[in-house]
């Protein structure tokens, strides 16, 4: 079971969280103007890296707030965590 660092509550057990998806995928602004391909990229395409991945989680059985965190998909290590709209910290080495 992962120990996930909520930026408000600190590290807590994975059972308190729900995974959202890749962090930093913005809802396109001018939705009616962009091409099908651009919209399709937003709807269907996500990074699936081996290694560090910026993710969006919600502390659903805790403070219920969403946050972002770097996680290593190989080692399951957590890197820096950051709140929505905070600048993304650098990808851990």
């Amino acid at each position: 079971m992962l120990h996930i660092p909520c930026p408000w509550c600190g590290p807590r057990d994975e059972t308190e969280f729900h995974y959202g998806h890749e962090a930093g995928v913005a809802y396109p602004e001018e939705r009616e103007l962009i091409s099908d391909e651009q919209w399709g990229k937003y709807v269907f395409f996500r990074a699936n890296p081996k290694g560090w991945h910026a993710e969006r989680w919600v502390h659903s059985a805790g403070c219920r707030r969403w946050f972002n965190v770097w996680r290593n998909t190989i080692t399951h290590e957590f890197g820096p965590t950051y709140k929505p709209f905070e600048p993304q910290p650098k990808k851990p080495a």
Partner: protein
Amino acid sequence: MSKVKFKFDGKKYKGRKGDSLATALLRNGIVHFTDSAYRDRPRGIIGLGHEEANALVHVDSGAGEPMYPATVLPITDGLVVRSLSGVGDLPDTRDKSRYDKKYRHVDVVVVGAGTAGLKAAGEQARAGKDVVICDEQDRPGGHLVHLGQDVPTDLLAVLDMPNVTYLPRTIVHGLYDQGYSVASERRTDHLDSEVHKKKARMRTWHFRAEKTILATGAYQRHLVFANNDLPGIMLSHAAATYVARDGVDVFKTAVVVTVDNQGYRDAVRLHNAGVQVLAIADCRQSASGPSVDAAKALGITIMNGKTAVDACIKEKKKTVKCVEIGNLDGTDSTCIETDLVAVSGGWTPTVHLGTYIGVKPKWDASLAAFTFGGVSNQWLSSVGMVAGDFGGDDSPAIFFGPQQSETQALDAFVDFQRDATLRDVRRAIKAGMQSIEHVKRYTAIGTAHDQGKTSGTITMGLIGAALGKQPDEIGSLTFRSPFVPVPFASLAGRERGKLADPVRRTPIHALHEAAGAPMEDVGQWKRPWFFPKGKEDMHAAVLRECAAVRDGVGVMDASTLGKIDIQGPDAAEFLDRVYTNMFSSLKVGQSRYGFMCGIDGMVFDDGVTTRLGENHFLMTTTTGGAAKVLDWLEEWLYTEWPDLKVYCTSVTEHISTVAIVGPKSRNLIAKLSPGLDASNEAFGFMENKYADVAGIPARIARISFSGELAYEINVEAWYGAHIWEAVMREGKEFGITPYGTETMHVLRAEKGYVILGQDTDGTQTPMDLGMDWIVSKKKDFIGKRSFTRSDTARAGRHQLVGFMPIDGSEVIPEGAYVVEASNAGQKPPVKHVGYVTSSYMSAALGRSFAMGMLANGQARHGEEVAIPLRGKVIMAKVTEPLFFDKENTRRDG
């Protein structure tokens, strides 16, 4: 020492308290223990602990145990066990023992209380760390316990420190990310054979530690030669311990076969305990060290460059008769008659826990072992044999067995429990497999209860030998938790039976139960399924309930619908963005049905939302979708629209909802709520009124999920039962009929109302469902952009239609596939063009009907299609998905 009486395979035996079953049986002269699972070969005890591959028992007494190694089972008075041939059977009675759980956050978990573990724990504890030591044995000392030696007092001192918790009989069987480990403590099995009422039999510990230190020691390996599985051929350390420490005197003579100096140490122990050691066969050309010198000093014959190449059986006793000692290439062998063949094939450090979290052990050729020497990470470190610190004077050869002919290979066992042989390994290699992961799956080696504790490294060695590679070039050892078999009951703890999963009941539940309604599980909710009268079956009850609603008045408990209270100055704007239709135009006191889509434009939830105030809405969701919808709303508020001032609160359990439904519901509401003007003119469809119902303040909503005139009475949750009782009492004169989910489903289907998750599966747009009217053209909303994507906008998509069976007495099974009528008689494979999602017998229609999806269905009304089933075909006519009261004349009564 007190005597203990126990039963093994139906016979009575005596043993000494504190003995393992293995010791006790050997003491009683039982060397042939059982026969193997697949080849019926006689087998005996080979090991000392959880590495045991042969001596498995089923425990019948006390709490029972379907499969447990005799080597780690303590004997107690009244113990009843029977031997297993590899295959266990689960008891069909309920385990009455208690099981508990404990959670601990600690600085350090030390796994193993041998000398290395005690030393490491002492260092950590003296540095001020909070330490837990888990150890599988009943006393500290690890290897020293096997040797029957006292543990130095300075090492034991750590156990008395206030910041140290020592847990004997506790096996850590799982290690996970971020220092999480799980252990099982056995608390009563060693005391007696009772089922304890007050004391938990086992306690499952959940640790979260900054550091886990493995001090798990090592298991000895055997060697692979013909008939190496005969009873009386044992791991040398186990044999010497049974003989020297426990005083087992069943063996008079022994031959030791070794690849390292451990064999010499065990030869000395056997000799000193009175066993005549006939020879030590050492595969190495020469050997030196204190243990070699000690063996020499005792005058034991040492045969260098020799090993066991074959063995024979005593036909009557089914134990080993003699062992053939020869050259490593199998030549020049001589037979030595002996009771015991003690095999030392080197040590395999117990790295399992580390591999669970992806730490890879390294091959150390000087130790002929995979170890964690020099391997650690933030969460894990190792000490003692796991870390490659073997102590002693071992200088093992990398040797797993002599050259063997094809005939010999057939009986040269690699994995005893799986009856897998050298020939199996050779066959796997010939079939092209080179990696341990492939060979393992081809031969089943390492997949039995012991997970290859003795055979894993041997298999890699044998593959390597065959391919001319080092063991670490074959792959790496990856194990899976649990490290030992763990009863499911112990993991469940007290969360069994009724406590296994939370059950959600409405405040009216007890009345439904008293009425004899069977319950349907909807997520965690219990909902009345139907309300049988007398001996009615569901079919009859549902037809009666449906007719009552259509002709008179029915009542349903709708309290389980998800409810989300949405407040804030931007609440209306927010709803406009998440629903496909407009909510900002909704007047206070009015309700509107809405669809929510994902960003892909597919419908994922629906429900009625009511505007309670200018900035205050009450959203209802599907019963199963409430949590998902709340998460969805909050995600958009938090991550995309933080500028919107909106708060969402789950209020599902705050409100009881009693729906009275049917043409006579107006008469009933008038009686229940004399202050309410329930006329159509004063109280229109989709409107809400506040009034007292049966003396309780209520919000009454004119919402209908059946097409009938209906009033939903919403009250504070705790008045739910009171309202239900009042409805039943006052409704008697109108023939009030309670109905359940099944009738609700039929009624809504007759009107073509979809149930999200039953008629949809996340691949339907509102247009696919024929509900273009619910999609606003005036505003943007989540998913709208996807409607114009080429695939979403293409022709020929699956669309919601009705299927009317030509024979109205036939009910199509839900989930059935639909094919073109021209393919009706075709043998499969036949291309399907749709499927049935809802199908019922209807009282109102006097016939069966169904709904489902059909390719290009909206353009195919009136056509015939076929539903092929096993042994028959149902023909059906495609219709619009609306079957009853097509003009909507009934909703106003």
